[in-house]
């Protein structure tokens, strides 16, 4: 799974255009490795739920972006090994210019 932490756009020139994302998305699908993926709506629409030990439910607005990076979306891809995944992650515009992409294997519970 590629977790896309898009860099917050600072005053500098944008590092990628919408077209870059379209190109990447097309490449992932055409390579036949695409399993699923979504881009997430703006962080101001996010809500956090946590349930305490006594069952009390807390709902808060946020999370607020305390770091410079926020989860912007994800791809689940099917590739043979980590190097292949890292290669795709590097091609993802989200990893450019201050952003980063975290690569995590999806757990395999021995089907």
């Amino acid at each position: 799974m590629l977790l896309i932490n898009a860099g917050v756009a600072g005053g500098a020139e944008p590092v990628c255009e919408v077209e870059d994302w379209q190109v990447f998305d097309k490449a992932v699908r055409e390579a036949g490795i695409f399993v699923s993926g979504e881009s997430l709506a703006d962080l101001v629409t996010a809500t956090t739920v946590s349930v305490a030990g006594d069952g009390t439910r807390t709902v808060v607005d946020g999370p607020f972006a305390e770091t410079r990076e926020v989860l912007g979306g994800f791809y689940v891809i099917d590739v043979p090994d980590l190097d292949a995944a890292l290669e795709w992650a590097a091609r993802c515009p989200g990893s450019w210019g201050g952003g980063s992409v975290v690569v995590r294997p999806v757990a395999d519970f021995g089907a």
Partner: protein
Amino acid sequence: MRAAAGVVEAVFREEHGRLLAALVRRFGDLDLAEEVTSAAVEAALAHWPVDGVPERPGAWLMATARRKAVDRLRRDRVYAAKLALMRVDSVTELPEGADFPDDRLQLFFTCAHPALPEEARGALTLRCLAGLSTAEVARAYLVPAATMAQRIVRAKRKIREARIPFRVPGADELPQRLPGVLQTLYSIFTEGYATQRADLAEEAVRLVRILRRLLPAEREVSGLLALMLLVHARWEARVGPDGALVLLDDQDRGRWDTAMIAEGLSLVPRALTGGPAGPYGVQAAIAALHVEAVDVATTDWRQIVALYDVLCALTPSPVVALNRAAAVAMRDGPVAGLRLVDALSGEERLRDYAPLHAARADLLRRAGRAAEAVVAYGRALELAVTEPERAHLRKRLDEVGGTT
């Protein structure tokens, strides 16, 4: 009996990495490969003293390990189905005497994969390629065996679960990945120096030799081997009879290992020609200039400063800048060097770096500013890590009139 055991040990040292690498490639599982590698060695210890050492001990070990791996996979059918059923058939067909290919190169890249924590890379390399036990690796890094065991288990788990591949990077990726492998080997070497273990430094040299055999065209591998040899040739001379560190200036050059120097020197031209030089090649060239000079006075300091300029451009770091300052001081005098060192002393990374304060103290002493030198030696002494280093600084402090 003893002789056979000695042969097993020698063979193990020589063949362990190859054996493990070949088995990893065949079965795609590091743990299984390790398990059957040690099972094969155990079998050798049991059989060789009775039946005699086979003509090709490496091939014997390989055949035995393969058989054990196949048995193990057959026993554990779920495991087998998941792993390598297809590969098993080809495994059994290989004739006993046949030589097996050298797959160690991919193991080098796996152990030094950038996705692994840095602290685990050297440990894993020593464990898998050098064949050191976990306890020996722990001793090398001065950590408790349990801590090291955990570190290695975690690294192996990451290799398995994140699917770090056992493969040699393609030509397009090699320039990006090779420096990590060289860095891992160099850090094993410097760990040998930090812990004053010549055997560890020698193990690093042995591993770089293997890497060089596997990647003969890579000039930085030759550069690293040259650098290590030229540094290690002076191992005996760098500690005096009183246990204090002896700096290059004062070393008894008769105690240098001339064969090692000759080998190191022969590699330097190879590391420097045929394209832009890499950082290890340049450092080897600097080390070569040091050993080629008869003494410090006749050392070609102009050339050394020029090489440090190249190194600063390739890998800019405050430590490189500090070494450059020391060379400038030899070329232009202590005051010129002092100016550069003082400019560096504000660097965060160097504030508590003993060599900076030691270098500063030396320059102050040479510039005739004894009182300031005493203070600087004192600071260096506070920060110095190894005992020979401290002994050297105490000696210098006495000479400039300070008290320890």
